[in-house]
């Protein structure tokens, strides 16, 4: 599937999932929809994902609260049953709002408490390196998540172990739970931080598919790579964009109808 179509489908699915479940974090899922779509469209062999092949690309979401985007992607590419998506966040469902692997095909690991998925991703990348396998590990983290000290423990470790097949993508939307990242714990210049930690790093527009596709091919022979993806939280629905209310609120009534209309007008 073309990544632009997948990204739109993800947003359209997520809107209905969050609406139905009265869930939260729609802004975060919209923020990473393009990154997720580009990864599944161009960097993973769907058949290998389906069979759990040991050489499959590992796509890991460390900012687990945006899990709806991963579930939607897995349904769109045919790994998860579409009917299962409808259960998201409801009684008895395996699809917890923070992404879970437990009984969910296609999800590598469960996350939700920030700064932990990145370390597991490093362990997964290390296992591949030690076993002489060629798979790549992509891990999506948030810029707010980078407040966590454990992220920086991983950053040191991945460089030390020369995890050159590990790519971390930072969803740099500039917002975290209570406001602007720069007003809470300012992450300042993430690209130069990563470079000074010995990583290969660059910054791209996280909604520009061609730019993401090109940047995600970045690799260094003995360094891990970090792509800082500048994004807009809530991207795709004008009244959700850059508005932290949509870290929490679920779209109902007029809001839901307006969001559907806006997305339908963007249908690729």
């Amino acid at each position, binding site marked *: 599937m073309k990544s632009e179509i997948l990204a739109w489908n993800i947003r359209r699915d997520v809107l209905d999932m969050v609406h139905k479940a009265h869930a939260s974090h729609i802004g975060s899922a919209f923020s990473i929809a393009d990154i997720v779509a580009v990864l599944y469209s161009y960097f993973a062999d769907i058949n290998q994902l389906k069979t759990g092949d040991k050489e499959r690309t590992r796509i890991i979401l460390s900012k687990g609260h945006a899990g709806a985007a991963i579930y939607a992607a897995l349904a769109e590419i045919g790994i998860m049953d579409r009917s299962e998506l409808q259960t998201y966040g409801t009684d008895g469902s395996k699809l917890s709002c923070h992404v879970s*692997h*437990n009984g969910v095909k296609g999800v590598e*690991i*469960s*996350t*939700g*408490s920030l*700064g*932990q*998925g*990145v*370390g*597991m*991703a*490093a*362990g*997964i*990348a*290390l*296992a*591949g390196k*030690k*076993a002489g396998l060629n798979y790549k590990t992509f891990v999506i983290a948030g810029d707010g998540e980078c407040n966590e*000290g*454990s992220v920086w*423990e*991983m950053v*040191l*470790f991945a460089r*030390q*172990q020369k995890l050159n097949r590990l790519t971390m993508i930072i969803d740099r939307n500039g917002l975290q739970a209570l406001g602007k990242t720069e007003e809470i714990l300012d992450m300042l210049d993430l690209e130069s931080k990563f470079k000074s930690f010995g990583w290969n790093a660059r910054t791209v527009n996280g909604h520009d598919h061609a730019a993401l596709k090109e940047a995600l091919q970045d690799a260094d022979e003995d360094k891990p790579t970090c792509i800082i993806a500048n994004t807009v939280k809530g991207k795709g629905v004008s009244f959700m964009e850059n508005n932290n209310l949509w870290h929490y609120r679920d779209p109902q009534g007029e809001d839901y109808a307006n969001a559907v209309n806006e997305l339908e007008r963007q249908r690729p």
Partner: protein
Amino acid sequence: MRNAFVNTLCKLAAEDKKIFLLVGDMGFGVFDKFRKDNADRFINAGIAEQNMAAVAAGLALEGNVVFAYSIANFTSLRCIEQIRNCIAYHKANVKIVGVGSGVSYGSLGITHHSTEDLSVMRTVPNMKIFSPADAYESAAVTEAAYKIDTPCYIRLGRGREPLIHQHEIKNYTIGKAIKISDGTDCAIFSTGAISYDALKATTALNAQGISTALFTFPTVKPMDIQVVEEYARKCKMIVSVEENNTIGGFGSAVAEIISSLKGEKAFLKRIAINDEFTGVVGSHDYLKNVYKISAEHIVRAVEKEFE
């Protein structure tokens, strides 16, 4: 018992190339042989235990057996949420190994006394807990933990503990207590290195005519329910002995079993650290007295009930 763990691990790693050892920049000189024989499978993760726990989980989920080693507090409490989420929830094949449990790092001070780890780790689902009493138990539980593919916590002493057993323990069954001596008045259940104090107390009590049984519990989770129930029915008094806070640890595990028993049953005395931090340091033996968990205190607690 630390060396017994290391030697057993070296033996296992020679056979199984999926074994990795992660250390949190700890164990000076201890792992020289492992490093020499398995350079590619020894990873010093640095002084970064949260990451070490998460990396261990990721590495294990790819089919490896990962031992993650540091001082008991650092490898348990320091990264407890990574243990819960990354290791336990994923049922990752990680063996968390904590050295220097209890107050064995006596003079190093409170930060290095591991006296809540048993309590905290017990509450984590999917986690099995081993607390060997001596080198033989240490080797036995290391092998037993290796044989299963689920998360384990192995709580070791500092090293050079006196032996409780006369010979090695072959094919230890997880969850089984080991009978050291039998008795009918009182049964002492002990776990970890403090078991040597329990042994001394048992000998003294039997000499006084109080028929005292002694069991060591190399596994704290799951507990040997059968032994606890049997002796709670048979004896007047049960004593649990551990080098850990009295809240939530081994004694609590014994209490949970006894409290569910209907009808006539023994009274339980828990010998454990009484929910406090001491303000002094000293040798291991000195601190066991300060915390009132030494052989002498065990004897006194039992004597009182049989006067």
